[in-house]
């Protein structure tokens, strides 16, 4: 081949560097953060009790269970999956913990581990069905939602478990921070978000998880064991739901078979409001934290301003549809 042909079709000029403004707008967590700050701003004018250390701590405490669920949910959704069973799985895990500790004669720490392991096992089953049987995540986890819910009712016999050992409610305890007191559980949630952010952003496994939701064929052809990776994601998400179960127990002080019934949808709401694409591969876990806090702030703020709780649900619903709409429009633009 002659070099003249090579020069004829010379490489086109380098891409113009994207402008600062454009780069800033491309930060996916900017929208959720803006919405969160706007909501805070509004409620701090609407109620003088909103912007107090005590109330902020309360919001964190109200958010910690759904927030922790949202960490696992984010991982699953980033792979282009969805987990409808996480609330029910958490409820079952909390029943396993409390039952074993109270009437099973099992040491509290072992009961906690058993509860977390139960949730991890449920996650592993979900992941295996999705990966090996190639069933849609929506259907698998919908089925698992019912199974976990039924197991909860069977094991609890509709009885709330009370008289828990201290260790199970330890995460509900508080420590002083300036003028206010903060629960250990809300700190744990923030730590989990930080760890998840690190893993997703800065490890090979995290990069693969993003790529998996983006183009699974590319990941497979790059020599990554896609099956193991995907089952791993659902299992780790299960561990997180198990930790959420412990937080739930710590917050309520009992093992409640009725708990967590809408938490699956709340966790999806948080993830979607946080700007993580339901189609996988795009978004930041930090956004999911903003999303969870946004839901928490709206509920708390409307409560403080005396709005009926029905409207809290209404507004959350509208926000979710808006968030998905924005994601969908962004997707079409890229095409």
């Amino acid at each position: 081949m002659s070099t003249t042909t090579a020069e004829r079709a010379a490489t086109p000029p380098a891409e113009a560097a994207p402008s600062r403004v454009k780069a800033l707008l491309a930060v996916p967590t900017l929208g959720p953060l803006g919405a969160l700050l706007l909501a805070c701003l509004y409620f701090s004018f609407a109620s003088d009790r909103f912007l107090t250390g005590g109330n902020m701590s309360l919001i964190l405490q109200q958010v910690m269970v759904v927030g922790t669920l949202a960490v696992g949910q984010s991982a699953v959704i980033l792979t282009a999956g969805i987990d409808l069973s996480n609330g029910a799985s958490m409820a079952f895990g909390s029943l396993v913990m409390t039952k074993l500790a109270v009437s099973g004669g099992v040491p509290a720490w072992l009961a906690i581990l058993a509860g977390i392991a139960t949730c991890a096992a449920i996650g592993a089953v979900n992941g295996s069905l999705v990966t090996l049987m190639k069933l849609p995540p929506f259907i698998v986890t919908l089925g698992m939602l019912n199974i976990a819910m039924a197991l909860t009712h069977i094991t609890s016999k509709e009885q709330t478990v009370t008289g828990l050992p201290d260790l199970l409610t330890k995460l509900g305890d508080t420590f002083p921070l300036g003028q206010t007191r903060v629960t250990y559980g809300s700190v744990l949630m923030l730590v989990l978000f930080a760890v998840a952010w690190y893993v997703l952003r800065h490890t090979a496994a995290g990069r693969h998880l993003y790529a998996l939701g983006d183009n699974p064929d590319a990941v497979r052809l790059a020599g990554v064991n896609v099956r193991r990776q995907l089952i791993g994601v659902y299992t780790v998400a299960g561990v997180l739901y198990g930790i959420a179960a412990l937080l739930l127990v710590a917050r309520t002080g009992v093992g409640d078979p009725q708990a967590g019934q809408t938490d699956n949808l709340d966790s999806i709401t948080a993830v979607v409001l946080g700007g993580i694409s339901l189609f996988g591969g795009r978004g930041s876990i930090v956004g999911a934290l903003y999303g969870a806090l946004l839901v928490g702030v709206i509920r708390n703020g409307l409560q403080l301003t005396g709005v009926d709780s029905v409207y809290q649900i209404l507004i959350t619903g509208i926000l979710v549809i808006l968030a998905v709409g924005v994601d969908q429009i962004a997707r079409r633009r890229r095409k």
Partner: protein
Amino acid sequence: MSTETPLSTETALSTEIPRPVLEGRGLVKRYGHVTALDGCDFELLPGEILAVIGDNGAGKSSLIKALSGALIPDSGQLLLDGEPVRFHGPADARRAGIETVYQDLAVAPALDIASNLFLGREIRRKGVFGSVFRLVDKPRMQSDAAKHMADLKIGIRSMGQAVETLSGGQRQGVAVARAAAFARHVVIMDEPTAALGVKETGMVLDLIRRVRDNGLPVVVISHDMPAVFEIADRVHVQRLGRRVAILRPSETDMAEAVAIMTGAAPGNLAAA
């Protein structure tokens, strides 16, 4: 070595053939009653661009899959640098130094260029950050990626930009750069110019030449006849699961190639 190969009986190109980098002998692959490969031979010589052409159903993709480890032949032999090899999956072929650029499947659009280049082969930080905390070395991957892209004269400045922001030709460039960066023996490209415009096709063809000029032989499967005739050093014509001809673009034309491909004209190789 030519005494053992079926090639020795052939008239074309039988003289002064250096040892093939990659060679297939009598490859057979059947799917039920369908015979995709029917005793197919193949060889790729050092420093060449070999195009594989053939009509639909001629066994082109089966041949390429066999070479890249995506398919295990029922019988026949594969030799890499003269040594017999067996691939049980694409990972085996990759480990042996054969990289494949798959059509449309190669990249994750939302990830940046460096992440795509090192997908599945991430470099970790040295020390405890890498071994305990599994921290990937982004600055190093970005600078290495920039070097690999520059080796092929792909003019993209930022390795941190998402692949979806690139044009089709540039995306293909990322996939080719990845293959060239990690291949030690062979780069295989499946339809590298499909769905590209004229200018972009020219750009990708230049890339393929640069890969060869940097020392790696390239196998290109393509429907794009003008492209094939522009870049190939030799053309392997596949028909009915076999290689029926080896052509040199300088000694033939597209009409003849198409005639052989469709069976309207006989090939220049004796039936095995």
